[in-house]
């Protein structure tokens, strides 16, 4: 499959996401924020980083990039979209996902290996996992605290839109330990931790993150 990885000004983990896409057995297609062009890809990854320096609010300025108009439209049609870290923030700012991400409760950037539980294994990005499976991937963020009002949180839990949850230790003050959520349809997933840094034994925190990049094929074959 062809998976697009968008580069915004200030994207950092775009090369890593491309590598993970390749290691996952798919073709990585570089997409540029300034073009209204998804180059015929089957799915899109919005990578991590500090797009526009994270100035104003994380993702607030990138959301208005030309390419995002296309991503929003494609997502509404059902195209799989994965936002990692800064990409998650952009998806929330674009209103493709509910809630928002705020400064970590301890107010520091944190980089660590984080244990997660995959809560939902029926999205196109998580079908390689079992529901309830526990994995360890890299987490690194300064503004990763997931917040939404109580009603929204209850709805997310009720509808099964919580995709991943922090285990052992909540690293950023996210409400209900939420590490990732999806939209109602399940095709758009936002994740604060970085599965693309857990695809090789040599670098990062092991290979537990690979499933996010192999799921798509399985989803299609299934």
């Amino acid at each position, binding site marked *: 499959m062809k998976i697009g990885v968008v580069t915004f000004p200030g994207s950092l983990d775009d090369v890593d996401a491309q590598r993970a896409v390749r290691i996952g057995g798919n073709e990585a297609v570089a997409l540029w924020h300034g073009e209204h062009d998804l180059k015929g890809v089957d799915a899109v990854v919005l990578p991590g980083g500090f797009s526009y320096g994270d100035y*104003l*609010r994380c993702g*607030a*300025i990138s959301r*208005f990039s030309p390419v995002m108009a296309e991503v929003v439209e494609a997502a509404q049609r059902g195209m799989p979209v994965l936002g990692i870290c800064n990409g998650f923030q952009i998806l*929330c*700012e674009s209103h493709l996902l*509910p*809630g*928002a991400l*705020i*400064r*970590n*409760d*301890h*107010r520091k950037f944190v980089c660590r290996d984080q244990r997660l539980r995959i809560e939902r294994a029926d999205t196109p990005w998580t079908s390689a996992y079992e529901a309830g499976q526990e994995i360890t991937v890299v987490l690194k963020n300064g503004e990763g*605290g997931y*917040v*939404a*009002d109580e009603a929204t949180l209850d709805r997310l839990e009720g509808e099964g839109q919580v995709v991943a949850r922090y285990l052992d230790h909540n690293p950023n*003050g996210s*409400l209900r330990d939420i590490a990732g959520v999806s939209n109602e349809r399940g095709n758009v997933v936002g994740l604060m931790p970085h599965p693309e840094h857990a695809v090789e034994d040599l670098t990062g925190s092991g290979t537990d993150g690979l499933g996010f990049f192999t799921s798509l094929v399985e989803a299609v074959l299934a």
Partner: protein
Amino acid sequence: MSRVVVDVMPKPEILDPQGKAVLGALPRLGFSGVADVRQGKRFELEVEGEVTDEVLAEVARMAETLLSNPVIENFTVRVEETAEVQA
């Protein structure tokens, strides 16, 4: 040139880690009598020409779409006023 100020504050029900940290630090620095602190953002916009109602409405739209995130923040728009104590 006129100055329009947009204040953006976290909604009361939303956690404000920065405000909380300030609140926690005050007594350690010997300050008492502050019951709560919220930290938000202040934008000073220099706009060309006079500040008409239209300009204010335009700024309100900027505030709503770009400067604030309505999920977690409220905003206020005003024409700059002078302050009481200046550093």
